[in-house]
């Protein structure tokens, strides 16, 4: 792969969110860029200082108090939402946070009502995001968040609940109807009976666990939950499924099976080392031929703006509004299958909002062709409330300093659109606002 500026912009915008030109080392090889990117990642958990969950719940005796508690819990989750979003735009966290966001969609779990589960799940995803998929799968399966979300607590010897068993096979590992049957789902549910979460810990309650013989994937034995996870991991189809989803998230919508196969081989042969697979991906020639072929997710879009202009969203209401409106609210995936992504991020109403977002953030909603101080004053006084809530005072001098000596089109736009490049060829604020207001900018 060629050591070009465009390839470097592509690498960083896919592997993290956005890169300013001054972060690029033009003469370093792309291989070294990739290694360096992995080396630099800083993992920091998101943590809120809260009283223990038991303490919180202790006080909620009356219905009124319980309602207040629920409200408070949801408010805390919104704080975590802002914290995570903010952290995604931090220097040296781009890759680890983007991977965490990927796993959030893969092990999709709705925790908007509970900040404890939210922190637990988010931090375990981050901890293992570039580690080993086996560890990640174990950690998720034993997490309070997933145990509650997929009703493992209700999975008892006398009355098995198949929710977790089914999604484990269908969504988390093998893929729908791949190498498992309805009968396997029933038997896997039995293997996970008694799994629960109490006082902040995963437990297996012996008297609720079914110790009998099960037949799973054609084998007979007294299997427990861990045995099932091992049997699944042994099957290369599990690595294929993960590689497939990684491909659709980091490469492009249209799947080229030989390329996915490369990834799944690396994952399986490295005994599920996620970093090995990701490094292979970012070093593959074919990765660099897929520029501008993916739709930015709403969260990605928001983080790109934050990183680009070095600000953080601080107003809870407008950030939540932005996520709701564009269709991706952190900790609130639509269902256990996560966000469909790709073209499904886009519909007319959402595209209209996306096309206005840049001008809302930078210019109170006006896509300007004349930017004079007088006009700017006028806009400030005229701007409607709804339009100003996204507005940020940004440091344009810093932006230009960080992106000196290059065509700003190349920094901002990953799709190849010669007409647009020709029309918007000057490095000024107007051009930037124009470029951010294009269908092209929605792609990465």
């Amino acid at each position, binding site marked *: 792969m060629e050591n070009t500026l465009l390839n470097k912009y592509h690498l960083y915008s896919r592997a993290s969110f956005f890169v300013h030109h001054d972060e690029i080392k033009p003469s370093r090889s792309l291989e070294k860029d990739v290694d360096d990117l992995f080396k630099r990642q800083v993992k920091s958990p998101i943590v809120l200082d809260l009283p223990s969950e038991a303490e919180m719940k202790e006080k909620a005796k009356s*219905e009124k108090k319980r309602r207040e508690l629920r409200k408070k819990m949801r408010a805390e989750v919104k704080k975590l939402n802002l914290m995570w979003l903010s952290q995604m735009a931090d220097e040296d966290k781009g890759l680890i946070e983007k991977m965490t966001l990927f796993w959030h969609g893969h092990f999709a779990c*709705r925790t908007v009502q509970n900040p404890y589960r939210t922190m637990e799940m988010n931090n375990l995803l981050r901890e293992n995001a570039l580690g080993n998929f086996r560890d990640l799968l174990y950690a998720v399966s034993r997490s309070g968040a997933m145990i509650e979300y997929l009703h493992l607590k209700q999975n008892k010897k006398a009355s098995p609940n*198949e929710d977790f068993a*089914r999604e484990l096979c*269908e*969504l988390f590992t093998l893929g729908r109807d791949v190498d498992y049957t309805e009968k396997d789902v029933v038997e896997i549910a039995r293997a996970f009976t008694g799994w629960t979460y109490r006082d902040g810990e995963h437990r297996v309650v012996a008297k609720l666990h079914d110790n009998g013989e099960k037949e799973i994937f054609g084998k007979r034995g007294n299997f427990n939950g861990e045995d099932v996870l091992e049997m699944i991991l042994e099957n290369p189809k599990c690595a294929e499924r993960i590689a497939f989803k990684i491909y659709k998230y980091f490469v*492009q*919508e*249209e799947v080229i099976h030989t390329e996915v196969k490369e990834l799944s081989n690396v994952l399986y042969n490295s005994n599920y080392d996620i970093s090995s697979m990701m490094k292979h991906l970012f070093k593959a020639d074919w990765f660099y031929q897929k520029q*501008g*072929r*993916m*739709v930015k997710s709403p969260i990605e879009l928001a983080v790109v703006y934050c990183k680009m202009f070095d600000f953080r969203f601080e107003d809870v209401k407008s950030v939540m509004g932005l996520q*709701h*409106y564009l*269709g991706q609210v952190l900790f609130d995936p*639509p*269902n*256990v*299958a996560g966000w*469909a992504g790709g*073209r*499904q991020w*886009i*519909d*007319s*109403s*959402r*595209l*209209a*909002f996306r*096309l*206005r977002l840049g001008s809302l953030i930078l210019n109170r909603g006006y*896509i300007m*062709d004349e930017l004079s101080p007088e006009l700017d004053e006028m806009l400030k006084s005229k701007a409607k409330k709804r339009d100003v809530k996204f507005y940020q005072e940004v440091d344009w001098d810093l932006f230009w300093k960080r992106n000196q000596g290059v065509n700003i089109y190349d920094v901002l736009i990953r*799709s*190849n*659109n*010669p*007409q*647009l490049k020709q029309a918007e060829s000057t490095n000024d604020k107007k051009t930037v606002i*124009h470029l951010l*207001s*294009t*269908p*092209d900018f*929605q*792609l990465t």
Partner: protein
Amino acid sequence: MRRREFLQKTGLITAGTLFVPSFLRANTLGSSLSLGKKRLVVIQLSGGNDGLNTIVPHGLDEYYQNRSQIGHKLEALLKLDDRFGWNKKLPGMKALYDKGLVSIINSVGYPNPNRSHFRSMDIWHTASNSDENWQSGWLGRYLDNNCTHAFESIEWDGSLSLAMKGKERAGIALTNPRAFYDTVHSDYFKQLQAPEAADSELQFMYKVFEDTKNSAAYIYDQYRLKTNDSDYGSGNLGKKLKEVATLIKSDIQTPVFYTSLGGFDTHVNQQWAHDRLMEELDAGVSAFVKDLEKDGLLKETTIMIFSEFGRRLKENASRGTDHGAANVLFLIDTDLSQKAHSYNQIDLSDLDKGDPKYKVDFRQVYQEVLQHSLGVDSEMVLKRKFDELGLF
């Protein structure tokens, strides 16, 4: 782009049957809608409507045994028959029913009901089984298979429901045609052209972009054709339905409209809150039907009113009700068969975890609405075949 130009570009103008003044239409043409047989207007009651206090089974002892505090007394109902009565706040709906324009379909749900709002709404929106996670909506798949423009499916709300999102196409959500038009018709967007050659994703983005601009212009133009001075009262649902009616009266080529009324999650002191919602529903729907009827448009319209689930038979300790399962669904149409009324049944002695069991799968209703109202192959949309109900 102005309407005429748009019509030329999209080929609609050659269709011949379109944009005929409504006074002519009544005499010469069967339908103002060339694309499907009828328009479908979906009204979603969000939060889980208490169907047992909507169509009240006063003839069943279990109802009063389980609802000593919030049950509606017989004398407070608008009597339907020996078993059922309308909530007293639904006189308009009752009048429509008496004219044969309403089907009450009780006990609508699906196997293995999910009692989470989000999950159950998902199931209704995607039309999946409860153990499947589909990512496209049923009306979205209708769009995928049968439509070309975003304006063919309009949701009068802040954002687009999953029901309206297909794999390739999606409807449009808006609450203000003028604002939506302005948003996508700035000078800059006017001169922004699709690139001559582009990768498929960029082509897709520009296709949606062009369609959005065209749809916004078309909707805004249609919206301005008619002024609507019918009285819809002050309720929010009524206001939204009035806007929908205004568009329908313009002969807009939109087969699907969608809107919602929220606040049905009545866990606490529900009587007052639920009655108020019934009032709003009744006022909105009856004004809407009257308005369409006045212009001869009711016969080209099917209205479906649903909620993601019903509520538990037994009231809770806070004089409210908790999440339930099967529920009542309403269809309003001029072609309803009498057979529909045989589905108007409920058995409160045979419950699933305290909730009425489903007797009609909601997808059986979808199937017939797709076939009868939208005139399409329902199996393409629902991916399955269901038993016929014979609603129409």
